[in-house]
């Protein structure tokens, strides 16, 4: 039972480089999310998707892009990496359970350093 899988687990980037953080889920969840976690700040929502082909901005979208071509995959793209993007990134997916609440399941995270 894989759940939510994120790759890579660790990455070091130079300023100005680009990369894609991969996220895939095998639970057939419609909703997917990207968060970043900074020390003492909790998790902040970057982007989310309610289904294939539909994405929307969260609280901190600047410097990032997403796409959702399939139900399973929700990659996060950094075009021009900056030191401020040094963080731990978490992908999550969810489904609406009885009562309308979405229970989110998280991946193990990608630790990114931009130097």
């Amino acid at each position, binding site marked *: 039972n894989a759940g*939510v899988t994120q790759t890579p687990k660790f990455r070091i980037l130079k300023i100005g480089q680009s990369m894609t953080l991969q996220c895939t889920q095998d639970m057939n969840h419609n*909703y997917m*999310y990207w*968060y970043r976690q900074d020390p*003492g*700040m*909790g*998790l*902040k*929502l970057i982007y*989310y998707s*309610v289904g294939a082909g539909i994405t929307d901005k*969260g609280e901190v979208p600047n410097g990032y892009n997403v796409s959702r071509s399939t139900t399973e995959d929700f990659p996060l793209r950094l075009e021009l990496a900056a030191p401020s993007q040094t963080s731990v990134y*978490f992908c*999550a997916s*969810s489904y*609406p359970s009885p*009562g*309308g*609440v*979405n*229970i*989110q*399941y*998280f*991946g*193990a*995270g990608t630790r990114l350093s931009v130097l």
Partner: protein
Amino acid sequence: AQSVTQLDSQVPVFEEAPVELRCNYSSSVSVYLFWYVQYPNQGLQLLLKYLSGSTLVKGINGFEAEFNKSQTSFHLRKPSVHISDTAEYFCAVSVAGNTGKLIFGQGTTLQVKP
């Protein structure tokens, strides 16, 4: 808009002692409330949730939380902690029908000492 405040950034406690991690929230509409736990170098795992009904909810690993609407609080408790409970704990809220987006508190590090 919603916000979540976890009142303690770190909580040191001795093994087998009781612990309370405090969480207050602000919202003009009804919310669902969650506690997540993050063990070192791992993702977040759901501990428990409050949706409606009984204000005392029980979760995994012996944790429980009490929803207090008048004080807008959702404190997490455990009567006797273990070394293995050492982790970071996050309180979060979401609004019904709002795509499930979570708003997190800043996190509380629980350090259980032998």
